[in-house]
């Protein structure tokens, strides 16, 4: 066990170093996309924790991201907290929101839960227009400041975003991995497997479910704050229903139970608009088609994944290998 853990730490550090060198080699746009990928990795892993492990569906994670983003922006604008504390505030605020939602969610199951969180995803961002401190439709500025001068003259703003988001992604993956490997992770899997059996073995179902929602929401809040960092502002329109849907899509593409797969989903989500752009230009299609092609591709991919690779590419590969081995014996 100990050996495995030190190997994991080594892998995480190695990942960080690779990202560091990569960010120096590619152009600005790619760096920006890298930052977006890192944000998606965090958001998707929060869904994986919630849906894949505790078995609860949320279509409202976009709203929880909005909570985190607004909390961070208010902390920055009104109280001018240092940037690290802003992110902490984002996590805490979203976690509180998640705990409240989780308390409601623990009573609901399946489609009821999905619908409730769907209503939240549509309703909550528009609530920001009700409070002047949140800046209405224009939203709030969220400025993390220039990169420190010690990093050199040619260290760009986007690279700074990428660093912050990348570091946050590595740290939160690390944290989630440990949580999932702990007693709580096993508890959630027991509940997902069979609620009654879990209850009979002494697990407090409601409390475990609320805990899963709280942690997942906190992580989503962090992702929300990071997302608004890359955009520079926080406004209701940055957290549309489509965001919640694409997070779920990303999680399904990654495989709902493979945390390491979060990378696959995030890369796909960022890459699809680009691919769609190329395809549309190649075909010389009209603007109507061009703007809607990414949405079409993402949704079509989602359906195909659910139908043919329901448990994700990594899990599928593993199952095939296991079958192969069993046949050999």
């Amino acid at each position: 066990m100990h050996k495995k853990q030190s190997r994991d730490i080594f892998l995480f550090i190695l990942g960080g170093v690779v990202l560091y060198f990569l960010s120096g080699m590619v152009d600005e746009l790619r760096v920006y996309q890298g930052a977006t990928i890192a944000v998606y990795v965090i958001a998707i892993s929060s869904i994986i924790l919630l849906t894949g492990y505790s078995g609860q569906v949320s279509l409202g994670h976009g709203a929880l991201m909005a909570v985190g983003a607004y909390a961070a922006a208010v902390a920055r604008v009104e109280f001018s907290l240092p940037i690290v504390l802003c992110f902490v505030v984002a996590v805490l605020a979203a976690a509180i929101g998640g705990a409240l939602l989780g308390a409601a969610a623990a009573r609901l199951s399946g489609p009821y839960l999905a619908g409730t969180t769907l209503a939240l995803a549509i309703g909550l961002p528009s609530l920001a227009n009700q409070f002047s401190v949140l800046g209405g439709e224009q939203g709030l500025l969220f400025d993390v400041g220039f990169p420190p001068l010690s990093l050199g003259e040619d260290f760009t703003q986007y690279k700074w975003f990428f660093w912050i988001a990348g570091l946050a992604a590595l740290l939160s993956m690390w944290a989630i991995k440990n949580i999932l490997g702990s007693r709580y992770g096993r508890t959630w899997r027991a509940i997902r497997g069979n609620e009654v059996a879990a209850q009979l073995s002494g697990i407090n179902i409601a409390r475990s479910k609320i805990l899963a929602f709280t942690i997942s929401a906190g992580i989503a809040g962090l992702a929300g704050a990071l997302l608004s960092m890359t955009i520079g502002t926080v406004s209701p329109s940055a957290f549309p229903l489509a965001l919640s849907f694409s997070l779920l899509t990303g999680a399904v593409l990654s495989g709902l139970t493979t945390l390491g797969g979060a990378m696959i989903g995030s890369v796909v989500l960022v890459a699809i608009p680009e691919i769609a752009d190329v395809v549309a230009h190649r075909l010389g299609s009209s603007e109507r088609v061009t703007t809607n092609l990414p949405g079409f591709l993402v949704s079509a991919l989602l359906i195909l994944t659910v139908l043919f690779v329901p448990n994700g590419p990594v899990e599928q590969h593993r199952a095939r290998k296991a079958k192969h081995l069993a046949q050999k014996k």
Partner: protein
Amino acid sequence: MDLLNTFLIGVTAGTIYGLMAISMVLVWRSTRVVNFAQAGMALLSTYFGYEAVTRLGSFWIALPVAMIGGALVAALVEMILIRLLVKHSTSGPIAGVAPIIATLGLLGVIRSVSAMIWGGQDVRIVGPVSNDGFTINGTTLVFSPLKLLILVTVLVLMLILSIVFQKTNIGLALRASAHAPEIARLSGVKVDWVRTLGWALSGAAGAVAGMFQTVNGNGTLSPDSIEFSLLLVSGFIAAVIGGLDSMIGAVIGGLVLGLMISFVLMYVSSGLFFIAPFVILLTVLFIRPQGLFGAKAARRA
């Protein structure tokens, strides 16, 4: 006068939500799937209706065209997507969420395809009668001939649907396959086809809801319009308030939702447009997690 206006607006909106909720209940009863693409299918059928209105010039021809189109789309979805889904995604952690995710994906596909075909232009459906309010004793109500027409049509459709369900053999087959598919199959009911029929009925009901939602609003149609986001959420919420399993529940859920939203907008704040449904839903579910008319689920061991 305000009170009456608010009430009548709420009732009209509520019947449309109720119709949408009925279409979700029909799908839920026939396949145990909550169809998040229902509003998308309604959108597509409304576009069929739009094409019919522009070509043939009559709303009353367009309405059945939209219904038939909606029924065909829904039947195809059931035969292709849902049957595959039932076959493939039945094990592993995905099992519980697969229908939700697949129908969400379908919603995305329908939205983007409709936007590719009809998006970016001014698509408008003019109602069959005027939407200017009735005038009584010199004061003009918000309630209009159009709203009255919607109210009557929806009520008639609901009546027909409940007669079909209660009094005909098809209705009996629909209820039997929802309640106990195995036993229904043993008694000679072609359960697969009955399911497809359930979807088709639901598609037709959704088409009517889509058409009326459009003319009851400002008449314009767009894949990204607020009307359709509202139809998506309200139809679902109304169905859940009613308990997902009950048609009467769906109608009452729709009315409760329509009236509550209308009163909140009038007397509290118009900025609460999108958050009000959420609060109403949470309140109902906190009191009765299985909805107003739903049967309490037995514990599965």
